[in-house]
């Protein structure tokens, strides 16, 4: 299967960093997922063959890491942290606000395919809680109003 030139450049740069091929597996999977949206059977087969692994081994690894998914997700993955630092500052309110606004629950995707909502564990934004990540972007010191603006911003971005 075909990946972007950017992916290929990254892959080519990464593999020689390690004494064993499979060491590049985890970052490679994440980069592939960024590009395809999820780790499809085709992606798994391709990466397995590139790194001399069985598909089973690749699946074993994928299923271990919480950022990796074999199921399609929305364009924007809204990951709201509700771990302790965020929880005591209203992280759950943010999560529920998102759920209400988007009309979806944990790990569900809006019908337009724009948003997936996910309750996540600590994302390392504790001193700026409550916090969320949309894809890789951090959004911190959240309030429900701020979250509204953020989600609207992403929606606008998608429709532009």
């Amino acid at each position, binding site marked *: 299967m075909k990946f972007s030139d950017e992916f290929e450049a990254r892959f080519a740069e990464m593999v020689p960093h390690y004494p064993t091929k499979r060491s590049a597996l985890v970052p490679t999977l994440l980069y592939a997922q960024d590009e395809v949206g999820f780790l499809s059977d085709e992606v798994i087969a391709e990466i397995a063959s590139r*790194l*001399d692994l*069985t*598909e*089973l081994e690749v699946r*074993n690894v994928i*299923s271990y890491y919480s950022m990796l998914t074999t199921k399609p997700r929305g364009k924007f993955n809204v990951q709201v942290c509700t771990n302790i630092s965020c929880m005591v500052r209203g992280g759950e309110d943010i999560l529920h606000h998102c759920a209400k606004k988007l009309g979806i629950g944990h790990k569900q995707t809006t019908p337009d395919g724009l948003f997936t909502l996910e309750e996540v564990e600590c994302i390392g934004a504790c001193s700026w809680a409550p916090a969320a990540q949309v894809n890789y972007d951090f959004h911190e010191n959240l309030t429900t109003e701020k979250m509204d603006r953020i989600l609207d911003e992403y929606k606008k971005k998608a429709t532009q």
Partner: protein
Amino acid sequence: MPAGLRLLRECEGETPSRQPAGRRRDKSRLLNMADVTLTVDGKKVTAPAGTLLIEACKTVGIEVPSFCYYPNLSLQGACRMCLVKVEKMPKLQTACTTVVGEGMVVITDSDEIKQARKSMLEMLLGNHPLDCPVCDAGGECELQDMTFSYGAAESKFMEAKNHKEEQQWSPVVFFDRPRCILCYRCVRVCGEGMDVWALGVQNRGVSSLIAPNKEDHLECEECGMCIDICPVGALTSGAYRYKTRPWEMKHVGTVCTHCGDGCKTTLGVRRSDTGMEIVRGDNRDKSGTNGDFLCIKGRYAFDFANHEERLTQPLIRKNGKLTPATWEETFALVGKKFAEVRDKDGGSAIGVIGSTRTTNEEAYLLSKFARVVLKTNNVDHHRTADFPALSAALRGKPDATASMADVYNAPAILLIGNDPTEQHPLLAWQIRNNVRLHRARLYLLNSQPIKLRRQATSFTQIPAGTEGKVASFLSGDDAAANALASPSTNRDAWTALRDKLHEEKNLIIIFGAEIRGNDIASLIAFGSALEGAKFICLADYANSRGAADMGLYPDLLPGYHPTAGGSDFHQEWAIPPTAGLDLPGMVEAGKSGKLKALYVVGSNPIGRLNIDPFACSKSFVVVQDMFLTETAVIADVVLPAANAYEKSGTMTNTCGDVQLVKKAGEISGTKADFEMIVRIADAMGFDVRKLVPFGGGTHADMGQSRGAQSGEADRHAVWLEMQGLEPKLTPLDPMAILDEIQRLVPGYDVSRVNLLAGNIEHTSLTKSGPGAAQKPESISPAHDGLFTSGTLGRYSRTLKSVMESHEVKPAEVAAD
């Protein structure tokens, strides 16, 4: 792996392993290690340095419980059941990962440890369904046993248990996640033991589960090792599940009837309408060389026994149709016809085809019956290896054959031809695990990139048909290198390989049917120059070796003695003076009308050896078989035979290891081949005492007992049996023939006690007869793989059901 010679890749831990370095164990390091002394529960324990604490405890009878620890598999430390107190260590330590140390003081039984074990079980049972009453493993479940020994009676758990639907991964493998305790034994035995790597661990935490290689199903060797090694009922067998309770079965340890490796299989048998039904095969008691290894055939392919097409009454061709008849009528007819032909046209008008799956006693009896009763040397069988050549070449050489057990311990192995993974699964297991656990060096020469190349120190791919040239080259014929040299393996590489082999001590040289006749002589000439080299010649079926040893040849008697004369047999048997016809010869004689009668015992030459079904249309054909095979349908008389699981006796595997075959049960309406041969002889008016030396033995107490009081009689009977002195009361007792075999067949004078105890006794060819040169084309390898087994395999639904039997897929790559 590229074709060609990868010479001298020493296995410095480079064998494919998915386990991190910390979990790998190299048992070879334990050899030559100094002993250390430690104290366990106040007892002094001495063990070689490097021994695991859990194993050291075993040696003094201290049980440290565990689920995930399994001898010879990588260490996990996962189940935490083996926690023990090691002095000076703040936390409890896992005995399965702790190596013994000098002066170590260990406590395995304290309140703290009891509590640790109890809580592990409580936590396990939290999510474990308590469906023991309907669980296949109920009654033989390690979790039950552990809970009984170390657990608590009360349950603190009141939440809903995590549930996941049961999955069927293949016709023979079912997985029930809720029952799984994640000991990872299945994953390891599949990967490390089988080198299949079809199982993995997916997800994490409490959602962790064992996953098959094809997402929702398995594509593998279907060996079922994962099921047998499962301590609970998480992995269950499609062949056995929900059929019975373990305590309702009779467990009979016997020998697998399929390939020539001679695995012990313990059959679970229960009563059924037809007499008996085998419902399970395993070898959990690890009797036999195979330990707990069995392939799909040994584990599941017993189901032919209850196939509905099984013949259960004699058939006589009447008005062109095979019609049911009584045993009396049938034996009378066969006896009359055979006697008529013998008396009118002479014994040479009768042909006899023996079996590669009957017992040694039956093969011997048939060989004797042909010579002595039918007065013919027209005897043959489906040959898949050139044992007469092996015997001739090894004659006079002591300890020149290797046993199956030797393969696991040899420092080096040379394998030419064959694909043991497919054709000799136990041999492949022995080789693989010897390489993995003892770092044995494996030299492979094969025309195909066979799977064992992954374990090989050196793999050389050679053109098909040049295996014999390899033998010549190794034995010093440098000219043969011209035929072998290729761009990937030049002459120098060949010479280097030979030099390397010359340095090996105690090398086991294993070869397939590709090497026959003079090539065997060359190979043995080469091996005999090495210190301690031993040989294994690979033949295809459960008693192919026995058929050969017992003289199912037109020119050879039991023990490879020529029919021409010069053996003990000539003193006792009246043997026709000239060599008889081999199978092709009999076919020709049939076509020309010279062969008036043909007696086929447990063989299907028409179905398996491409023989014209009309070749014998002028002959009186008698077939003994379980099914109406291609050969049976053209017969005049068909006798319904019992199979190897329904009779007693001995069998010899391809290495020459003889083992006791035990009768697991019987199907009403069948008879063992042994009995049928005797009854035909009887119907021919032959004095069966001269065929089967029954009535011998002794009733005298031989000073062993003072009378039949209070158990003395029992003890006496056991003693007599152990000496082979128990009275054989009927001509149908195979032990009477075994007496004769042990007396007359060279190399079979093995310990009767050991045989009866279920052990393996290695026979020797040192004192065999001189043999006779056989035509190379008389060898017809069966090419049975993991999912076929000659005619028998066609009647095993399990073998036919697995998808791997329908498609041949290349093996997946091994990863680092």
